[in-house]
């Protein structure tokens, strides 16, 4: 690979969304040659067919062990590959593992050329986790809203209150019992179902 050419990067990831986020980031940074492998079956053959300079894989993927075979110098391996770990930079290795991503490079590729790729992978993986957390939080917030609405309806019916009064009752009960309003709402629903 000539020095000025963009290295060929292969992303091994079963999550299409995360792979897309990573691919987009790499392209924006000027890495034009990016491919994605989603199918883990016969992984080594797929990797060899693409013949990448850099391989990026997520740590949730059991097939990471398959890639380790490429470290071996044997007939089956075309180009020996090493894991990208900068021994002088433990922080970077830790950041990578904590972000949930690992990179493998073809032997001989210069460290300076790889470091920015790895840094980008780490930040995109972290961005994806954050996105996922937010999604989870939004989901549970929505769930809680639904539960509170149902509990409000029950209280309104049983105690002849209007919506606002019902909500105030739920909230003050939660404060008194040092519980979340969602928990109080859930116990009202459970109780109502029991007493049906």
């Amino acid at each position, binding site marked *: 690979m000539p020095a000025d050419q963009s290295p060929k990067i292969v992303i091994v990831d079963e999550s299409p969304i995360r792979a897309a986020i990573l691919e987009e980031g790499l392209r924006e940074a000027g890495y034009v040659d990016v491919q994605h492998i989603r199918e*883990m*079956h*016969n992984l*080594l053959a797929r990797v060899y067919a693409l013949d990448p300079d850099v391989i990026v894989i997520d*740590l*949730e*993927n*059991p*097939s*990471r*062990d*398959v*890639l*380790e*075979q490429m*470290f*071996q*110098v*044997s*007939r*089956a391996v075309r180009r020996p590959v090493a*894991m990208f*770990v900068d*021994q002088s930079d*433990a922080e970077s*290795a*830790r950041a990578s*593992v*904590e972000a949930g991503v*690992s990179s493998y490079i073809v032997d001989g590729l210069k460290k300076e050329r790889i470091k920015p790729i790895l840094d980008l992978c780490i930040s995109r993986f972290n961005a994806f986790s954050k996105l996922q957390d937010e999604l989870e939080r939004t989901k549970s917030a929505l769930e809680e809203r639904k539960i509170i609405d149902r509990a409000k309806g029950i209280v309104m019916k049983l105690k002849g209150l209007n919506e606002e009064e019902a909500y105030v009752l739920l909230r003050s009960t939660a404060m008194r019992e040092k519980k979340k309003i969602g928990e109080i709402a859930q116990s009202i629903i459970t109780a109502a179902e029991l007493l049906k």
Partner: protein
Amino acid sequence: MIDQPLRVGFIPLVDAAALIVAVDKGFTKAEGLNVELVREVSWSNVRDKLNIGLFEAAHLLAPVAIASSLGLGHVKVPIVASFNLGINGNAITVSPALHAALMSELDGDPTDPMATAQALRRVVVARARAGADPLTFGMTFPFSTHNYQLRFWMAAGGVDPDEDVRLVVLPPPYMVESLANGHVDAFCVGAPWNSVAVDLGVGHILHFVSDILLRAAEKVLAMRQSWAEKNPDTVAALTRAHVSAAAFIEAPENRNEIAAILAKPHHIGVSPEVLLRTLDGRLKIAPDGTMRESGRYLLVGREGAGRPDPVQAAWLYAQMVRWGQAAISPEALKIAQGVFRPDLYDAALGIIGSAPTDVPDAVGAFAGPPFDPSNIAAHLAAFEIVHMKS
């Protein structure tokens, strides 16, 4: 030391039993330890998280601990093992088609590994003549007992593992599916995966590893040497908890309870009945229900299995040399043997001045001369198929 939580990584396999039981039955707590088990999906993850300090200790393939200490294939991080989590426990499973081919070529007892390895050679030769693809064997990691056990077995029958067949790494959970859809013809893996293949009717257990080696160190309780040196009391407490757990596992009256603990979804997550077979060493070896029993299928603690034996480490290093993964040197041999630390085990139990058990051949391989750790070059010279680094 009590308050500091210890994160310990493991892969869902039966030979993580001592670790899982140590935590689940409170043996670690009784030692004043707060252990958090972390289930992992790959040996690479376990190795890396142990290396960089996200884990304090781990259930680790014995050869990975040695490779890490030698800096083979990856960053050099010295690892020590104060407890041996299992001796044996693997099996070689073959597809029904390969099983039929081997049986028709077999001249001898099907449990005799020399007879099956020679049958394999005849099958391999016939396939090459017919222009068929070479057979493919699955194993779990380049630095794995499974890799070395497969190689040792087939090479004894005249099959060159690097020339005559293909050896590929497969994550254990994918083994059975790969055998079923013909992507591999055979595999060597630990429990419960061999039994799962037999139950699904897609595999025959050809050999227990104990047919090939009487005593093979399989997984160790691994920790960074630097961490172990800084935390001797924690190491001792963790080791004692494992000794207690292993003794609990080996008591036959506890087997059902152990199987139930291991079967939990966050532990191994397969049916207790399958796990019981491994613990009892009574395995269904063919889809027709044929059973085979062995007192040596998996040793967790009994026959001194828990005490790390440097001779085992030397044997594993010799396999790395035999197959070109490591260069031969007295220094490397010393480092490899230094991974297995019977002294830490003895210190934890308060055993003073115990002489290492002097067994003439601690490995007990079915082929070749008795293993001599003091002269690996001469030992390897006795084998016909060897691919040492030039």
